[in-house]
């Protein structure tokens, strides 16, 4: 999977998880808040209705009090008529009243307005309101709704009323007796207080008495007709506050408030499914919002990850091109800081690699050239031609012993030169090679110079790079002693200096100026192979340094008319180390 996809998917996944978590938290919070809001709203509405109902009932109680204290209490029913005072009060409150009546303790009608004749079948003393008033004299009693069935109505109107009854003291002929004052409140008044009250989310409100009997319900007649049921009997057992109930398989939030004095209860019902419906809508909205944010995040993440990963991809592409061998690869340094640094590092690395490669190629080239030089020095045709010409000349001159010696030396010289293809050979072999070479040259130059080859103690068993001495000797003969008199001397001394092997080749020839001697090893000097060019010496120097490092090589000390001393410095190699160099592994 690409880095862009990894970043994009990871960011999106994390964002989705966070959003879902936040969404769930908010949803739960919202649901709880909604329920709380609905609860608060129901309680506020019910409190307001309770206030209105309380006010209405107090008004009815005031009517009852006024009726009692102003009309009934001070009148002697044996002499005075109560009708006028009662009528007056009735007319003042006729919007809320159906009838007002006073009965004696036996249920006989003393006075009533607006209808004043009892039905034949009426038995007031058996009515619940009458019994309640007589049993609990100190209280006012509110009945449940019922049809007013006491008075003869010529229009045969049957009206639903709530009866407010109380015990009263009647005065008859100066004597007091018990009686009952009945105020029939129009059901309209209660309906006016409770109707059109809507609770949140399609909730409704109903009113029950203490035993759960319905007083008002917005669908009261449906309940009376048996088409609907209400949980009123259970609701009567609830304390004031909010409750959760399950009725007919449906969950509802029920808020209850007891109406002062009467013991009636206002019950607010909010169906839970309407809350759930709201929650579902919110859930749907939240889900849509979540989807929107997720896809927006996905898109932005995709773009951001592309912004991050494009420079990395570009680097990857460049590296692939490098792997494929392309040379002109542009490595761009763009993107974030880290990626820029990475690009920069790769660019530096590639540059370093290129330089190293060039160095390696250069070194390989030099090595190859040096080896070629060795080969060339091994089979120097002039040397071979001159030697063989000398052998011919000596043979023709009858100098057979010298000819044999020369040929023998030549044969051994070549044998050591070959050395079974080894580049590192024992110091003794190298010195022997020098000796054979000098034997040949001494015969050729008719002993114009003498040679001393010494290996000092400590050098036994040491190894050296092959054919490092012979080119120096050749140089010494051609440039130092060829034009000298018979007292020329060339000394070859091998000695050990700590971890180094030093082979010193010295002659007492014509020498040279120090600056000329210094220039012999100068790499910038053109490789023109002419006599006196010193190319053999420089090749030896280069070979030693290529093989053993910069610390080793030649150093030339010369003074005009004094002579030249060439010091060959090599590592003091034993057989094991020599073997390692032979395999090309170095020290």
């Amino acid at each position: 999977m690409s880095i862009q996809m990894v970043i994009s998917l990871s960011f999106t996944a994390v964002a989705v998880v966070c959003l879902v978590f936040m969404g769930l938290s908010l949803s739960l919070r919202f649901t709880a808040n909604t329920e709380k809001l609905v609860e608060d709203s129901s309680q506020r509405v019910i409190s307001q209705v309770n206030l209105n109902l309380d006010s209405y009932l107090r008004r009815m109680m005031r009517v009852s009090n006024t009726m009692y204290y102003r009309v009934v209490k001070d009148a002697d029913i044996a002499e005075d008529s109560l009708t006028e005072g009662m009528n007056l009060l009735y007319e003042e409150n006729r919007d809320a009243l159906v009838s007002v009546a006073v009965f004696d303790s036996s249920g006989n009608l003393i006075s009533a307005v607006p209808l004043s004749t009892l039905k034949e079948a009426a038995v007031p003393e058996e009515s619940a309101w009458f019994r309640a008033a007589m049993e609990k004299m100190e209280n006012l009693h509110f009945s449940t709704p019922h049809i007013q069935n006491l008075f003869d109505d010529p229009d045969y109107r049957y009206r639903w009323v709530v009866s407010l009854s109380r015990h009263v003291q009647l005065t008859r002929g100066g004597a007091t007796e018990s009686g009952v004052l009945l105020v029939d409140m129009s059901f309209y008044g209660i309906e006016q207080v409770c109707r059109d009250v809507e609770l949140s989310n399609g909730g409704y409100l109903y009113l029950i008495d203490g035993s759960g009997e319905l007083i008002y319900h917005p669908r009261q007649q449906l309940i009376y007709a048996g088409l609907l049921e209400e949980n009123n009997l259970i609701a009567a057992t609830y304390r004031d506050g909010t409750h959760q109930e399950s009725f007919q398989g449906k969950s509802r939030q029920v808020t209850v408030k007891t109406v002062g004095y009467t013991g009636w209860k206002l019950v607010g019902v909010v169906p839970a499914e309407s809350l759930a419906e709201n929650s579902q809508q919110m859930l749907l909205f939240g889900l849509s919002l979540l989807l929107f944010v997720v896809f927006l995040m996905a898109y932005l993440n995709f773009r951001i990850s592309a912004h991050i990963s494009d420079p990395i991809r570009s680097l990857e592409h460049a590296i692939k091109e490098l792997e494929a061998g392309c040379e002109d690869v542009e490595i761009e340094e763009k993107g974030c800081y880290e990626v820029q640094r990475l690009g920069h590092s790769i660019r530096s690395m590639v540059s370093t690699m290129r330089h190293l490669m060039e160095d390696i190629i250069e070194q390989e080239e030099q090595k190859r050239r040096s080896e070629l030089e060795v080969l060339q020095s091994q089979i120097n045709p002039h040397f071979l031609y001159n030697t063989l010409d000398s052998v011919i000349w000596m043979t023709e001159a009858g100098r057979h012993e010298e000819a044999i010696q020369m040929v023998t030396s030549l044969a051994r010289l070549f044998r050591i030169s070959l050395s079974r293809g080894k580049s590192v050979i024992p110091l003794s072999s190298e010195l022997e090679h020098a000796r054979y070479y000098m034997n040949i040259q001494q015969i050729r130059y008719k002993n114009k110079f003498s040679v001393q080859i010494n290996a000092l103690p400590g050098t036994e068993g040491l190894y050296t790079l092959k054919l490092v001495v012979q080119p120096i000797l050749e140089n010494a003969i051609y440039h130092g002693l060829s034009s000298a008199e018979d007292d020329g001397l060339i000394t070859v001394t091998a000695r050990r200096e700590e971890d180094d092997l030093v082979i010193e080749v010295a002659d007492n020839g014509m020498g040279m100026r120090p600056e000329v001697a210094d220039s012999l090893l100068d790499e910038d000097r053109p490789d023109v192979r002419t006599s006196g060019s010193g190319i053999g010496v420089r090749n030896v120097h280069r070979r030693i340094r290529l093989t053993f490092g910069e610390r080793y090589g030649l150093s030339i000390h010369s003074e005009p008319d004094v002579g030249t001393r060439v010091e060959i410095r090599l590592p003091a190699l034993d057989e094991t180390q020599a073997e390692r160099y032979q395999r090309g592994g170095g020290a």
Partner: protein
Amino acid sequence: MNKRRNNIIQLAILVALAAAVALPLILPRMTEARVVATPLELSVILRDTDSSLWANARMGMEQAAAEHGVEMRFLTLTTQGDCAEQEELLRREAEGDTDMLVIAPADTQRLSRQLRELVGQRTVVSVESELEGAELSVLPDNAALGHALAQTAMEDWSGGTVLLLNTAPESAGVLERLEAVRQTLAGHGVPVCEKTVKISELTGALHELVQESGAVQIMAFEPAASECAAAGKESAQLSQPLYGVGSTTDIAAWLERGTICAVAAWSEYAAGYLAVEGAALTTRGETYKMEPLPFSIVRGEEIYDPDNQKLLFPVTY
């Protein structure tokens, strides 16, 4: 390749993004569309001339109409039980923009035959009588009601003929009650005398009918007949107990005054409510199952029992 794949992914994400934007805009409208239902037109066509007989039923109908989004027209006949007029009314309403009809059939058999021709495929709910071809019928079990009424009459019977007033010979529902009463009384050896009489003539003719039949008890089988018989009984000062059907305010008053001895009553309010609710829901394609309406026998002295108060006197303000 990678670039093309990335472009496709981006395009897919953008399409999903657009869908996520559109979703919250579209879904609330869809739910709103579900909630707001088109109001339905309903015509109620009775077989009576006096709509006060249906006052309680009308209250129930209006309640159901308010709850189910129904606009209601209430139509009565100019002549009691005039089938031709009722058919004409049905045709006229069907040609109008009414969606459904509630009918109290004047002539059940005749209307059954012509119902679909008159109203087409509109929803029809019958009240009082079972009407063939109607989607629903809202009525009590008329046979059981007649049987119960006969049982009540027999409780008071001490010999003599019982006069059965047939005031709606074309109404299947009324006839079913009458037949059940006849069978029950006959089954118990109670002699009966059936008299067919028009509602409009019943009040004046009752005395003569009673004398002709020598009846000791009188029975009527529809609210209008019960009221007219009660009026006739009172005006002729007849002493024969009268048994009727219905729960109108006037019948309650006759019951209270003792003019009517007992009635078989059912909640007219419930009947009206169920008729309109059934019609509305059936028109909207919902399945609606109708059970026979429960009824009870109410004697005069029992009208103020709490349950009977709720049955006879709908809560009005």
